[in-house]
């Protein structure tokens, strides 16, 4: 039965959504353990994709096609497993901060995190401290990620961190930030746990922080 896994992995890498769907269906039909399908078929594919992207051998749209194929496979397997058994690298709340509508970077990070196996709760744009606080309370994520393009709106990141402190939740969640005007210095200055310059390294950063 391991043939399915090898082929699944290859189909994830080449981003063939329909092929992944039919192979997953076949694997389920042949009586494979759903968790094995995820761990030995789907996830190894995305691991290869992640590694290839990092060294410039794959491009963003190809990575996202692979992620989409992976998700299609997951949707078929998920109903067969108890939700607590579904492998997830962790939960992350992400949004563009208050006063800012720029979201291409945030969406890219969000998709990269999902393709790295994280469950992402995207709170959208123009998200003030209260919105992040509410999402932290509701979803209890391991990490929150804030994005800003403007030097005026990046100040809102500090407000969110302060609000989390006031609510006694700051040590329950890691805070990471990103966007064109953001730097490691700024992250240190406002007391964030990390800064990532791009979507690929945001996933690495989460892995490090949640380890």
């Amino acid at each position, binding site marked *: 039965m391991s043939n399915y896994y090898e082929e699944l992995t290859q189909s994830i890498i080449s981003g063939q959504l329909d092929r992944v769907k039919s192979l997953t269906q076949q694997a389920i039909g042949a009586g494979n353990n759903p968790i094995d399908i995820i761990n030995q078929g789907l996830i190894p594919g995305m691991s290869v994709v992640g590694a290839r992207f990092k060294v410039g051998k794959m491009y963003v749209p190809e990575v996202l096609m692979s992620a989409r194929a992976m998700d299609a496979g997951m949707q078929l397997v998920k109903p067969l497993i108890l939700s607590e058994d579904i492998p997830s690298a962790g939960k992350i709340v992400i949004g563009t901060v208050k006063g800012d509508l720029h979201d291409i970077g945030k969406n890219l990070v969000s998709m990269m995190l999902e393709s790295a196996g994280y469950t992402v709760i995207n709170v959208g744009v123009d998200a003030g401290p209260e919105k992040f606080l509410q999402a932290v309370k509701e979803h209890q994520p391991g990490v929150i990620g804030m994005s800003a393009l403007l030097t*005026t709106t990046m100040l809102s990141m500090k407000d969110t961190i302060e609000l989390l402190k006031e609510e006694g939740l700051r040590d329950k969640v890691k805070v990471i930030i990103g966007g064109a005007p953001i730097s490691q210095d700024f992250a240190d200055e406002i007391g964030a746990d990390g800064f990532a310059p791009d979507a690929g390294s945001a996933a690495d950063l989460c892995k490090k922080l949640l380890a």
Partner: protein
Amino acid sequence: MPVKSNYAENASPMFRILSPRQCEEILLAAQEVLERTGVTVYDEEARDTLKKAGCWVDDILVRIPSAVVDRALRSVPKRVTLCNSRTGSRDVRLEGYNAYFGTGSDTPFTIDPYTGKRQRSTKQSVSNACKVIDALENLDFVMSLGIVQDVPLLISDRHQFEAQVLNTGKPIVTTAHDIYGFADIIEMCEIIAGGEEELRRNPFMTLYAEPISPLQHAWEAASKLILAAKKGLPVVYTPCVMAGGTVPATMAGVLTQGLAESLSGLVINQSTREGSPFIMGGVFTIMDMATTIFSYGSPEFNLLMSCLADLAHYLKIPMFGTAGCSDSNLVDEQAGIEGALSIAMTALSGPNLNHDVGYIEYGSTSSLEFLTINNDVIGMARRLVRGIQVNDETLALDLIHKIGPGGHFLCEDHTMKHFKTETYYPNLIDRQRYESWVETGSKTLFERANEKVKDIIENYEPDPLPKDIQQKIRGIVERSEQKIAK
């Protein structure tokens, strides 16, 4: 003298990418996008204005019938003039194929010419940059080359404008955080110009604003377009789109959607007050799919810039272009290649107000050395665009005959008369013989640029504004500081 019939001459190189029919096709496609898909507008006054103009408004989504776009295209002035704030001279005439060059504004970082380190830009770094731009003969206008970040950030735009206007008389393209910042900056300009009407007649400042791609006009942007129109002051509106990210991956799709974003901004502006001066911008480029950067040096960036210039000429709207910038993280060979290629293509294509000269690191950092090197490149490009005159004087047949085989032209009046205007002599580009290059320290282009930058910072003094006007400007900056302190 024979009379010559059927004689056509090229007074300059001829260069275009899109044919008139292709321009028309893209315009019509952009109008279809506006009529079918529409744009979101996050400003109530703008939506009301658009509705009155005949647009279809559903909540924040605004669809624009083609007739409304056509009307805006008829009412927008075909030309905008920007002046020197010290002399009042109407130096920058944004019309036709006139190509002017200037810097860019909102980089978070700059390279300190003394330490070589990348640092956050400050009021001092912006002041230094403006002095350097003021001193460089091929730079026609100023943008701050950095965001002032060592002051309260919420009102940093006022400081940024103060740093610019104190250190240069050249026209300024400035950014503002919102209409309140813009209003303060206009007030400063009116003081300098000697009144509201005087500023409108001879503007030396234009505001820069941008939509958010895809197809969104945030409150800040839409309200700036309206305030500029009410004041009768020029505004630059620049969609910054990334192929494959915020617009389609195909170049025609980029142009169509980018143009739709510009035209919807134009409609907001012209619906507020017909005839308001408007400068169509557009930094159209690719998202590099390996690194996700917004590329400032790719061939597609240059190609799209030239295409947009073709469209602007077709539409007869003054255009804000982009050139002299690079994706490289330092001023190296890559920066030189990308800067030169973009300046040459821009000069040939003829967009009018071309910014971002001196940007490195895909628009995140500014470098005064790169700016100073590009000052020479602009000079070279301008020489290229001047082309070649062909007439009796320049054919020089009598002279060729007089010198004949084996003579030389060095001592001729004709040579003396023409060699300096026919030839461009750059400042930093090195043409020394090897031995003298070694004798003068074997310096690289970057080292020579760095020396020149430091020399300007230390020894050049721009024309100052009168003391009382400086104080009034200070007063407005301080007033804004007091407001946020409350």
